[in-house]
């Protein structure tokens, strides 16, 4: 293990010394990713902190004027791009990912408000669009909390108002029952003079204090329920942000170049004879090649981590539902990638041939493995072929974790494939390398 680390540490130090590689492996992907991020909109470079979040607004019986006012208010906030919907539509919109969340006022919101019954606002959110739905939830929650706090304070200060309002609420409710036409009629009905008077008194008082509040602290009248609306089915065309997909897939694409470079170094070391010099050391030969593999894995992990973290910081790319799923995907992607390109290097005898072959392999597997096209949108034949490339499984894992906010169980299959491939490739590398050394082909 220490011997292995001697070899790996040497390569890592060399990589850190290699400014050109740093530029190519980190700065370039970061730059491309940024350009891509900006063209997909948003990010810290956008005019607003975040682009307006699409929300559906459900408020059954609100009068048109009130609805318009509410819509305009939400739009003006700059945070939301609201649309009206009935509850069935809103449900569908959330499930299809077309809106990040729906804010749902109950059918009898207005009535309940005037009757001082409890008012319950619901937020339905798309759990895979965690960030944006979270923002909606947070804003609504704050609004509701503010009302709840006011309610509590009001009640503490004017306990009498509470008693009066419960007594008078029935009259108000009668007065304001039904739609606007009916309210209009009630207000003009001569039989209702008394109740109108009481209602007016009540409303006056309520308006004096801006909000009609009642009931005990233990039973807040304005409540909030948050409900996830899970997408109906993955292949239902639900589309997370393209950027969420292409950041990792571009990173994997550049990762392939980086680890191919690391594998090519094996040939460099052979022609420069540093490889032969290492074989003269005590102990067995395999740590020489496994150390190189390990360095390449570390390099890849650093590279992917930097790119993903940059994506998260600059463009609010989702990093998965928990702190371990994405790292596992990153590590297994790198072990498979390093293994694959190291094996390629061992199979090819000349550096020049390897160079051309690696480039061709990267482009082809990039194309078929989903680095330029989301794996979920691939035609069937392509997905079938893609399965033979490790990057298909890497891209699939990233799409599930970053795009769909899936946890380890959601990426069980691709991770198993990546882990198995990594192990098989590593064994193949060691066997092949020892064979080469024993035959003297590498001396």
């Amino acid at each position: 293990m220490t011997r292995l680390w001697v070899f790996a540490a040497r390569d890592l130090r060399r990589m850190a010394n290699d400014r050109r590689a740093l530029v190519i492996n980190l700065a370039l992907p970061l730059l491309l990713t940024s350009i891509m991020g900006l063209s997909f909109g948003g990010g810290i470079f956008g005019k607003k902190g975040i682009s307006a979040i699409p929300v559906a607004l459900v408020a059954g019986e609100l009068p048109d004027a009130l609805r318009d006012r509410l819509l305009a208010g939400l739009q003006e906030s700059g945070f939301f791009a609201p649309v009206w919907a009935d509850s069935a539509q809103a449900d569908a919109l959330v499930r299809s990912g077309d809106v990040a969340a729906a804010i749902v006022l109950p059918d009898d919101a207005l009535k309940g408000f005037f009757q001082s019954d409890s008012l319950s606002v619901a937020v339905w959110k798309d759990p895979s669009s965690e960030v944006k739905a979270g923002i909606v939830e947070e804003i609504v929650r704050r609004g509701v909390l503010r009302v709840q706090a006011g309610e509590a304070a009001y009640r503490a200060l004017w306990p009498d108002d509470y008693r009066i309002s419960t007594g008078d609420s029935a009259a108000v409710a009668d007065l304001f029952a039904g739609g606007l036409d009916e309210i209009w009629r009630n207000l003009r009905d001569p039989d209702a003079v008394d109740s109108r008077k009481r209602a007016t008194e009540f409303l006056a008082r309520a308006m004096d204090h801006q909000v009609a509040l009642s009931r005990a602290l233990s039973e807040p009248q304005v409540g909030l329920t948050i409900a996830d609306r899970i997408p109906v089915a993955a292949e239902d065309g639900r589309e997370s942000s393209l950027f969420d997909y292409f950041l990792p897939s571009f990173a994997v694409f550049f990762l392939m170049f980086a680890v191919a470079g690391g594998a090519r170094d094996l040939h460099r070391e052979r022609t420069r004879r540093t490889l032969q010099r290492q074989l003269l050391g005590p102990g067995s030969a395999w740590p020489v090649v496994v150390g190189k593999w390990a360095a390449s894995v570390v390099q890849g992990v650093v590279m992917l981590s930097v790119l993903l973290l940059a994506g998260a910081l600059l463009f609010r790319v989702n990093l998965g539902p928990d702190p371990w799923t994405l790292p596992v995907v990153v590590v297994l992607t790198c072990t498979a990638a390093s293994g694959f390109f190291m094996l390629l290097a061992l199979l090819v005898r000349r550096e020049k041939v390897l160079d051309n072959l690696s480039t061709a392999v990267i482009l082809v597997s990039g194309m078929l493995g989903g680095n330029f096209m989301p794996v979920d949108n691939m035609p069937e034949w392509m997905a079938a072929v893609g399965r033979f490339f490790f990057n298909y499984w890497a891209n699939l894992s990233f799409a599930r974790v970053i795009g769909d906010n899936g946890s380890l169980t959601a990426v069980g299959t691709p991770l198993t494939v990546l882990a198995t491939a990594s192990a098989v490739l590593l064994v193949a590398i060691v066997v092949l390398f020892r064979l080469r050394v024993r035959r003297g082909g590498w001396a």
Partner: protein
Amino acid sequence: MIEVTDLVKKYGTHRAVDGVSFTVGRGELFGLLGPNGAGKTTTIGVLSTLLKADGGQVRIGGHDVASSPAQVRRLIGVVPQEIALYTDLTARDNLMFWGRLHGLGGAALSRRVEELLVMADLADQAKRRVDAYSGGMMRRLNLVAGLIHEPEVLFLDEPTVGIDAQARSRILDLIAQLGRQGLTVIYTTHYLEEAEHLCDRIGVIDRGRLVALGDKESLISQIGDVDLIRLSLPEGERAAFAAECGAWPECAGVGERRGKVEIRTPDGGRLLPRIQDWLRAHDLPLEQLEIERPNLETLYLNLTGRGLRENGS
């Protein structure tokens, strides 16, 4: 210390090393001299356990190279013909790595690295990357890197190729110093004067065969105390001359090489009048005639039919 017996190494059907035998004693500086492609590097490859021999036996410090390579590796240090260093690392980082490779660490490693940097006269340049070094500096670092684990035997494969005369003499001094310290050294080169200057004994290798072996004096005496006379003759006359000349008592041998007749003789002074007589009798002018006193170069020419300079420098 080193015993090589009937060593054969083939590449496909090509016998790169073809039945080479020699021994090197402890503390001896042995030169393996031969033109490019002679099989020097291949020989070093087998001796250093990196290549498997196709025939013969090599023992170093009593260990068989083929059956106990690990023991052999502990004894030997190898300085490859190429600059086998990480040019993207500093000199110190290089030596630290090669030291760790051999299981050194801690203060012992640091001490050894400083020692070698001083030995290579690179102590003040140790923090520079090797790719900023001159050819001579790289060669010196390449050499001391082979010494990091204090081997008893050092293989030096053409450690002076491609550098200027001054840098070369610094390297030769360094090797001479190592020799005085009791290190056993096999030194390959295609520069005759290096082998002559540096080595206790020399093996001349050509086309995979060891064509001469011994110290400088014994090598020369192998062809006897003979002069070499080269004579230009028209092509039609050469065979006739050779036939007649071969019969003269003063002549130790006659042959043809590169359009000239070559005559070996213990006494060039007595043969010359006879040659002049023959030329006059055949109505030929004395166009060109050289007499060469014996040295390693003539020996080498005699043995291989090739000048060392032809292929080498």
